[in-house]
């Protein structure tokens, strides 16, 4: 499974980016840089990650730093899938 591709798909779907996420790289900043990513959207992304990757996110393992960039989000998922 290509986790980065899955993550970009989730971001694109939740934020309704209409394909813009396909141009994102690991260094693309997210929180504070993508205007669509408000707290409601962050929750949408977490919830959809849970559905797609079949894990459950405890709130003490995720915070703003997880959403710093595409890369930090991918690393978080890699860690969860272990």
């Amino acid at each position: 499974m290509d986790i980065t591709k899955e993550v970009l798909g989730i971001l694109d779907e939740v934020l309704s980016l209409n394909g813009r996420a396909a141009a994102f790289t690991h260094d693309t900043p997210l929180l504070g840089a993508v205007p669509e990513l408000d707290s409601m959207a962050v929750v949408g992304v977490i919830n959809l990650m849970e559905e797609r990757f079949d894990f459950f996110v405890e709130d003490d393992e995720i915070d703003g730093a997880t959403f710093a960039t595409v890369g930090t989000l991918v690393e978080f998922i890699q860690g969860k899938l272990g």
Partner: protein
Amino acid sequence: MGQPRGLVLLVPPLLEELNKSRRMCALAARALADAGLLVLRMDLHGCGDSSGDLADASWVTWIADVEHSAAWLRSQADGPLFIWAVRGGALLAGDWLARGGGCDGLMLWHPVLEGRRNLLQLLRLAAVAHWQDEHKAGASASALLARLEQGAGAEVAGYVISPKLAKGWSSSRLELPPGFAAPVAVMEMAASGDVQPNRALGEWVARWSGAGQAVLHEKVTGPFFWQTQEIEVSPALIDASCAVLGRWGHAR
């Protein structure tokens, strides 16, 4: 309209997921009505356009709302009664069936299997709003749930949740009552090109199929409309649902 092909009760998704799903539910209800089914889009107490405050709602009163709606629908016309439950509405439908409710078919749109996870996903809204301010975890979703379980209320994104509501929701799991004989259809949304179905849903279907229950598991490609920022719709899910309920209903 003459004799309907069947009666359809929409048991809606819960709170914020309902907010995101209204358009999708309205479009599907219209399509089902056009296909000759009599459809009722019920409101749960404190949700939607009906009177009543959410703060006064409990899981038990919501189950009673399903019962009242089913009874009202049955009083309108003869015909088989189908329950169309969306996300967390499936939990309510299951709990209603366990308490003596009955139907002739159960169509579940990407059903929630565990209420606790569904409630935590809502409570996460409060937690994340906090960490965006402070850039650290403050009021966590599990801390909020713990407070609810201890009998305090909580307000999340404008939803005032009572401990009575949280308790029933959190402890609800999607089950079918013993001897349930009506057909079940699980409609799963999948991302485009996504080859991996949802494991938990697949296991649920396998468990009940193995127990002799007729369960149709249909995967539909489209957006997770109950979760997206913009209001999204899935015409493919509407078509698939019309096909399922059309098969179950009387011929025109």
